[in-house]
């Protein structure tokens, strides 16, 4: 869906998305990392199970909720990506805080 500008710097960080290796650029948010990796949705809704992807990228809509390093309901667009992060798509309802 999105690509990086050719001169926008290298994606040097290594993360996993649902266990599969992916690359990320320092300075990106987790949500941007997912979009750059071509992930088409980052969660399914608790009510109907519909797939959702980041919508506002600024912390308003909460569509970007993902599990990061085992902690659920993290707002992917507000969390800077870090080397070694394990990012997981979130399915349905998560307990509000684990």
């Amino acid at each position, binding site marked *: 869906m999105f690509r990086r500008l050719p001169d926008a710097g290298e994606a040097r960080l290594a993360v996993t998305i649902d266990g599969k290796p992916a690359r990320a650029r320092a300075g990106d948010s987790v949500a941007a990392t997912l979009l750059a990796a071509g992930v088409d949705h980052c969660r399914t809704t608790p009510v109907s199970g519909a797939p959702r992807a980041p919508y506002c990228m600024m912390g308003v809509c*909460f569509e970007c909720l993902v599990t990061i390093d085992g902690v659920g309901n993290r707002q992917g667009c507000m969390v800077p990506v870090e080397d070694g992060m394990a990012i997981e798509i979130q399915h349905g309802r998560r307990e509000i805080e684990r």
Partner: protein
Amino acid sequence: MSGTADLRDSYDVAVIGAGPAGMVAAAICAGAGLSTVLLDEQAAPGGQIYRAVGETPVRRPAVLGNDYWHGERLVRALRASTAHYVPGATVWSLSREREIGVSIAGGARLVQARRVIIATGALERPFPIPGWTLPGVMTAGAAQILLKSSGMIPQGRTVLAGSGPLLWLLAWQYLNAGAKLDAILDTTPRANRKAAWPHAAAFLLSPYFRKGLRLLLSVRRRVRVVAEVGDLRAEGEGKLQTVAYRVGDGVETRLSADILLLHQGVVPNVNLAMSVGIAHRWDEDQLCWTPVVDGFGGTAVDGVAIAGDGAGIAGAWAAEERGKLAALAAVRALKPDARREQLPDEMQVRLALAQVERGRLFLDRLYRPADRFRLPEGDTLVCRCEEVSARQIVETVALGCTGPNQMKAFLRCGMGPCQGRLCGLTVTELIARARGVSPAEVGRYRLRPPVKPITLGELAVLPKSEAAIKAVVRG
């Protein structure tokens, strides 16, 4: 990055939000010798317009344009001041006693301030059309954030739809960056031109006029623009595949698309201001809630002011001037003996503000979003979190539900994680229309702290002051 440990327990001035308004306000207060903290949840200063200005991976300056790079000056002035700027700091509560609840890197803290300047800016207005929840549909602002912060541009068939300056700005920036745009579907109603016309003369004198015109023409030369789109839908199985639209009431056209970027203006981000009990009025020109403030951004809550687009949409240049005024008021109250050379001249600021606010009414009227795109019908989702449709809301009004807070109990709308940020305006306007009364009469979701999610772990480390307990016990 600063951690909670670097924070002092109290400051003379706390500024919330590091956009143009907040950066300028913090630098002035600090320059006058007041201990000043600037809290912002982003990783770098800049706010929305100047997001990531110090660290954007977009290398060619021409891509984002001169107005964007102006932000560097504000960031430099902030860094050169003694203001304590704290990135990654999410403010989740503000009490009338000016105690601020803030989370930094997973730790929560309370900070006391003698004056608070809220500079939390604006949000994009909801754009509830059928299919707007499909992956592949996002806001133009979101796409612009991906460009500024990550140097990312769309890949695949891309359609922009909606109305307002930001939509055109994004198109222009994308074209500068080498992105290919398939179409711009302009939803500005034809009748708006007539309504805006009486204010055109004022707009001709606005600094936005020439820039705006140049930008518009430059985009129109390079992209197919469809005017007067009166009906818009996103369709697809599990993700966006088709954008369907009608010009006026004409036949439907269908475009294959991978990305649809929606925008119909911005509205003040009022959560923090509302939660502390600042009065808000329904603004019929801008179709949103606007806090009631005086000429310095001051509010009826003692010591709390609002600066920038959070006090009513007026744009980034106005935000800077309004930041100066809020800072002046704070300095006068806390340090009446501050040397005048350290402060901006009030008359000059007011003149500059009048200059950049000129013609705002023209923009408000011209880009007033059509009823059809603010007041959805049928199965179109209004509350994305709890998946509540327009029909459900209208039917619940018929059952006797008169306001948004009651609606929560019936339908859970506004009770998901976004706390009604995204559906609040739509729900108010839908109820108002169904009841045949004004949005002012219907009212809005009651907002209580925490206005941003905070984890139990973060709370556990907080001292149990009364304000802290009040802040987290939800009503």
